[in-house]
């Protein structure tokens, strides 16, 4: 059956596809982290909590206001992004000229607060969220639920749209310029602080969007973010934070690697990404796509 090397090729295709689905979440989350880090030089530890808040926002929209999944897909990230921007304005902003570690610690504290509040309110066993795209397609080699297919397509679109905006548009060039020389860009008459706020909001929005996408697939639970964020950190370290494309490719790539590990040696599937991280650090400390600073 599935023992060791006797894996039939069609099963392998199935697992590759599943890996891609997981990779979609890694890619969207590490992309958000990379965008925020690029401009703010802050490692956003709240990212996991914001992913969780995205899922909860979708749940609340459905259960309190009757907004269906497709509406939540747009509204929930906006709500979470606004909360994020308020945090940036009131708390994070005061730390920019300090050591980066303070940004990390502050966002870690915020993550604890959010997780605690949601656990307080909704318990930790999680809440159900119905699948908006039930059913699936039999691809011959596997049964692919429609919703999973949608997740892969949606996240690919979002990732490449982000890449396009940052690398290929004028707005993106301002962003990149502000990353390198905020003072100079400010002198050209661009409102850098506002740009920073919006960028943070955008990164947070990406996390929340990933959360909304996760809601029908996984249980909506207050702890869903804190477990994921550590893996995403490892993904970010492996990819290096130098490039947007790097974050996307590493996310999808590691999703596939993890998926394959689940077939060959499932016991290691929770640690394989960390092992890869250790190896990459030994060989190329700046990460696969990173540039040494």
């Amino acid at each position, binding site marked *: 059956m*599935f023992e060791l090397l006797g894996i039939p090729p069609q099963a392998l295709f199935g697992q590759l596809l*599943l890996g891609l689905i997981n990779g979609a979440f890694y890619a969207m989350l590490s992309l958000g982290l990379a965008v925020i880090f690029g401009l703010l030089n802050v490692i956003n530890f709240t990212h996991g909590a914001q992913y969780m808040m995205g899922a909860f926002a979708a749940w609340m929209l459905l259960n309190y206001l009757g907004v269906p999944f497709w509406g939540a897909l747009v509204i929930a990230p906006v709500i979470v992004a606004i909360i994020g921007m308020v945090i940036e304005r009131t708390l994070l902003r005061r730390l920019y000229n300090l050591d980066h570690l303070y940004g990390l610690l502050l966002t870690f504290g915020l993550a604890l607060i959010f997780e605690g509040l949601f656990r307080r309110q909704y*318990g930790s066993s*999680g809440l159900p969220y119905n*699948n908006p795209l039930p059913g699936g397609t039999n691809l011959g080699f596997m*049964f692919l*639920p429609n919703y999973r297919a949608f997740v892969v397509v949606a996240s690919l679109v979002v990732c490449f749209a982000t890449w396009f905006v940052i690398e290929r548009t004028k707005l993106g060039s301002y962003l990149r310029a502000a990353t390198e020389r905020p003072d100079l860009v400010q002198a050209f008459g661009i409102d850098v602080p506002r740009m920073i706020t919006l960028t943070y909001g955008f990164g947070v929005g990406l996390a929340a969007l990933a959360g909304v996408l996760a809601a029908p697939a*996984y249980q909506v639970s207050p702890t869903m973010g804190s477990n994921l964020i550590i893996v995403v950190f490892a993904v970010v370290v492996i990819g290096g934070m130098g490039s947007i494309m790097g974050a996307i490719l590493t996310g999808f790539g590691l999703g596939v690697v993890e998926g394959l590990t689940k077939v060959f040696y*499932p016991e290691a599937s929770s640690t394989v990404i960390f092992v890869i991280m250790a190896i990459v650090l030994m060989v190329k400390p700046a990460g696969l796509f990173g540039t040494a600073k």
Partner: protein
Amino acid sequence: MRFAAILLAATSLVGIGVAQAADPVPVKIGVLNDQSGLYADLGGPGSVWAAKKAVEDFGAAAKGLKVEVIAADHQNKADVGTSIARKWYDTEGVDVILDTPNSGVALAVSGVTQEKNKVFINSGAATSDLTGKACTPNTVHWTYDTWALANGTGKAIVKTGGDTWFFLTADYAFGHALERDTSKVVVDNGGKVVGSVKVPLNNADFSSFLLQAQSSKAKIIGLANAGGDTINSIKQASEYGIVEGGQKLAGLLIFLTDVHSLGLKTAQGLNLTSAWYWDQTDANRKFADEFAKANGGRRPTMVQAGVYSGVLHYLKAVEALKSAKDGAAVVAEMKKIPTDDPLFGKGEVRADGRHIHPMYLYEVKKPSESKGPWDYYILKATIPANEAFRPLSESDCPLVKKG
């Protein structure tokens, strides 16, 4: 420790003397469980309510007992749990600790309880070690354990035709034990285990493992996991159309609250073993109605019912002894008196501290069959008390004399 124990015994003797002279017998019950985390819904504040309700229904005051109930949150941390237990026993005069889900915390509290010669009546934890190799003369395990769950689910399902199994096993001691025990039962009853896969804890995505389970063509997919992992695996099984494809899921550790949080649409068709279900007898329904009134409409779980039943039996023993101070003596008395209460019926507490009662196999209803929230289970089979728990002959509890 010897010295401390003697000192403790001496002070407690003085305590008894004073108590008997003037006042009713003081009893202090501590409910130590998870008030806020993973297990808060299935035990938590509901267990505290159940303990207080038991004291009230027992009519403690009229029988010469002055009972006080306190509670604390162990946060699922063994060190927090033992700290509270030690403080309760050392400085606050607690006589018995109740509930305590989370096997790690339960085993730790059991150790402290023996050291301080108090009583520990566990309802929430799963590990069968509490009455196995870690059994003590001070611990009673009331509601269920891993052996009973594995045995009940495994045996009953094989008998009803589910004779080929594939396991999704949480990759740590608890999951391994559940898989091992269940596999044995399945094989002993003529079934076959066609495969298993070890899944890391807190793994959010089960699709890869479910796909393996699906292609194994096993009739039954056994979920040897707990909490969020169980919920996520059931949810994703529904997404992958596993139940519709003719395979059945068997949850080895599932509580009413888990089914509630999944919703019937996702959980339908699931087989599970439970010690107690609120909608089974009139007495249970009466208890559940009162529980719901006090707990925001929620129905009690088997853990909460077990706390109620355990407190009743404990108070009976204390009443007989006229003292709660010598923990081992109280537990010995609990083992001597047969158990009998409205929720768990007639039974006994065995030499190894195991409370013996029937277990039940349920199937989760289809949404169309349910009359509303909390109406979730159909009774499929009753496992009689004498078959429900690990027989003493297989016990590795040092208290049980072999031969």
